[in-house]
């Protein structure tokens, strides 16, 4: 780790101001950034912790019936408190291990947009709204490829609003070593249709599997997927799984998610 300055602002405004400095970096729960720093793979001059801002923490319901999660809310709190959205709470409950869940935050996960992270699948499958200190971004517009999002430099995710589906489930096939998602599929059935978001698999990061959405909107059962084929082209291929394997798992995990959706 190289030396850096560290600030812990208590308001969003102060945090945004601190992030205006060149080479300043936002610090959420640090579950990606801290290991990166320890390996000397990043050299920010200043870290701006978002962990001391009360207005960015907690889970509540909006008037529109959305589950609203503060950007600095740790996974463990979502797992315990997002009871109105069991699919989301279940996803949060299985991220990493207890230490990760007590530190890592929804805002940090979505801002980093790791291609193997779980939350991007929840946000995309839910059609969530990413609220920042300057605007609101629809999930469909937010994810722009591996580690790439619509966020501007210094922009802070203050809240994520998740519409609550009728039924949903997140099915994760873990990479055996890291236990990140090798393939994770979130299926969410709304009154106006089914959304299916896939994480871990694609070289373009999280994406919606629109063929499955159409099939499941017509008939919400694993059998509805039988005739669909997933191509290995454009899928991540590494020592834990070829593109073909991931493509195969996308279909298997989607079927299992549908079967378990409640």
């Amino acid at each position, binding site marked *: *780790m190289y030396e850096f300055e560290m600030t812990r602002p208590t308001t969003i405004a102060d945090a945004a101001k601190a992030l205006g400095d060149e080479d300043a970096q936002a610090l959420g729960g640090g579950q990606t950034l801290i290991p990166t720093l320890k390996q000397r793979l990043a050299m920010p001059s200043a870290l701006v912790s978002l962990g001391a801002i009360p207005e960015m923490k907690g889970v509540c319901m909006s008037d529109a019936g959305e589950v609203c999660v503060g950007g600095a809310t740790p996974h463990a709190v979502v797992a315990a408190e997002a009871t109105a959205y069991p699919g989301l709470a279940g996803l949060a409950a299985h991220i990493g291990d207890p230490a990760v869940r007590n530190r890592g935050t929804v805002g940090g996960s979505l801002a980093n947009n790791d291609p193997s992270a779980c939350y991007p699948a929840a946000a995309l499958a839910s059609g969530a709204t990413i609220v920042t200190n300057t605007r609101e971004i629809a999930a469909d517009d937010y994810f722009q490829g591996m580690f790439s999002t619509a966020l501007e430099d210094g922009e802070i995710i203050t809240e994520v609003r998740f519409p609550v589906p009728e039924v949903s489930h997140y099915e994760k*096939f873990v990479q*055996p*070593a*890291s236990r990140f998602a090798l393939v994770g599929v979130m299926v969410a059935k709304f009154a106006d249709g089914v959304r299916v978001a896939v994480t871990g698999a694609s070289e373009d990061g999280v994406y919606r599997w629109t063929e499955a959405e159409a099939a499941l909107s017509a008939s919400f059962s694993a059998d509805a997927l039988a005739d669909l084929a997933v191509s290995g082209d454009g899928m991540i291929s590494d*020592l834990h799984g070829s593109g073909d*394997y991931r493509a195969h798992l996308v279909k298997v995990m989607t079927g299992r998610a549908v079967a378990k959706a409640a």
Partner: protein
Amino acid sequence: MEKFGKSQSVKRVEDIRFLTGHGRYVDDIAPDGALRAYVLRSTIAHGVIEALDVADARAADGVHMVLTLGDLEAAGVGVALQATVVTNRDGTKGAEPERPLLARDRVRFVGEPVAFIVADTLAQARDAAEMIELEIADLEAHVVVEPGGEMLHAEAPDNLAFDFGLGDEDAVTAALDTAAHVIKVPVDDNRVIVNSMEPRGCYAEPEGADRLHVSVNGQGVWGTRDKVAAMLGLDKAQVRATNPDVGGGFGMKAMDYPETLLTAYAARALGRAVAWMSDRSEAMQSDNAGRDLNSVATLGFDADHRLVAYRVDTIANMGAYNSEYAQPIQTELFSKVLPGVYDLQAVYMRTRGVYTNTTQVDAYRGAGRPEAIFVLERAMDAAAREMGVDPFELRRINFIRPDQFPYTSATGQPYDVGDFDRVLTRVMAEAKVAGFEERRDEAAARGKLRGLGLCYYIESILGDPAETARVDFEEDGRVAIYVGTQSNGQGHETVFAQFLADHTGIPADRIRVVQGDSDLIAKGGGTGGSRSVTVQNTATLATVAAMVEGFTAFLADAEGVPASDVGFDDERFRIAGSNLTPTMLEVADMARAAGRDDLLSVSKRTKLDNRSFPNGAHVAEVEIDPETGVVTVERYTVIDDFGNLINPMLAEGQVHGGVVQGLGQALTERVVYDEDGQLLTASFMDYGMPRADDVPMMYFDTEATPSLYNPMGMKGCGEAGTVGALAAVTNAVQDAVWSRGIREVQMPFTPHRVWQMLRQAAA
């Protein structure tokens, strides 16, 4: 229970210390103010060093020393680590290329130490390392475990380290030529990274006027002391080596490493304490790796399915250099159990060692014996399948029978006792083998493939057969026992204190176990080869006998009776015609009061003529999800013959740990080097250590035939679990996929690899 084994499951006294953060690990006890060392390692697998300029690093803040190989040579110290070599089939010696402490002109693996930086803080040392100018011109990397490729060492044409043979090749060839059945089986034994919970570390500090103390988390202190003395040109008496609490060694920490010697040199040269601690990825790149060999087994059977011949041809990876004991492992140590538990005299093995641009390979829990048993038991399983014989029955009809003991194995091992049939019968009952088909059908109904696998293993205990025990009665009424073994976390303190307590009546909580200090203990064998409890307790028994003899004579003298009127019953001395029944501690006080200090420190050294041969049966039952390739171990049953048990709970714990290491290698642990020699699995993000939820509850029990070779009748148990697990799991996986037409399975069974195997079979 037997006379010399009290067989009590006493709980581990040292765990209080370990579990409450009071362990004294090397990084906890480095002296205040110790300088911190950092190693600059090669990031290139194979290349020529064209530039190495450390001038800026030397001038950096807080830096006290930057070492390159040239600096060591200029200082006139020894720069090469020594290694044992084997004898080739043609009578010549295995290759002995230099293994320098720091790279000499060339780098040969990613992680090879190039420069050693010592600074006030670790951050300063790392900063300085980044200022070192290192230019390396790439050479082709040789990564596959085969001879040939870009040459690493001029001393080893074709990258061949050795070509070892053992057995009667002509007899085996003749027997195979006429055998009714010949089965040939390729068996890959994948490389593992050891990953002791505590990575390697050490510190060194000047002690007194002209001495050096080197503390390292090793498996014994005397080799370290000798190597440091030789390297620095000191007398052995000038070096004190210690091992504090050690968080796992598994053979990996039995060998000495460049960092320890460099730290010792730096402390001596600077006249200050210097400490070095490996981080995890550094450990994964630089710790001796394990296994990594590919074999082809050929078995010959007669028409009645009795073994007539066995041949194994192996290529074993040495990594880039000879590690200290690497050459003997897949050769001499492999041969110890080559024919396993079978009545078979025609055997031959050939092993070729090859150098590759990977981290050096050396001992890993079992060191050669798990590898040999894995090959044999895979081959036996394959033979049973091919010949249409039940795998359990094929073992049974080929076992050495109880009436054949003592039995000299085909590779000269003097098996003393064994009742393999009894163990097999018991394991079949406990594993509910009879109900397996029903469980398989039930799994099939759920879309799962279920398989059952057996391994019948035998172990040959290794390590130094001699050991010393010294017992001191201290003035505060406590007793110290000095041992030459070294706990790496196995529970030695509990076992050795309890054993002494059982045989002397001294309360265990009054006994402290002293280990790992070359100033306090002149000689010892450390931990390794499943030796510790057997050799140490044998020495303790001899010491206790000497204590009893000395105190008996003392009491007889004091009471004016013949020595034959004084007896000791493991609790108290009893004197004919006297009401005096002193305990050993009380006699020690009497002796001290009488000025008989010679009775208060007693030491004996014993040597076992023969080692023991633990054996047993492991049965694994796995289930495979064909949709994902995930393999889960559903049931795991172990029946071992460890002879008499000293502490059954700790023995079972050793089996649990060993089995989990075996399951890890079989299911999750996969080392991947790319074609350029980059280690792709250099962190736990990519290297899959087994976790608690990967492991089933295990059934464990024993069927004992006490060993005849030591007074306790015990057999070592430290490595056995690993020896049995590899083949049991692999055979179970083979069984599960047999119905899919798959006739060859190779570890590790990661989901992706299993899925690919199933898909290829379906195509």
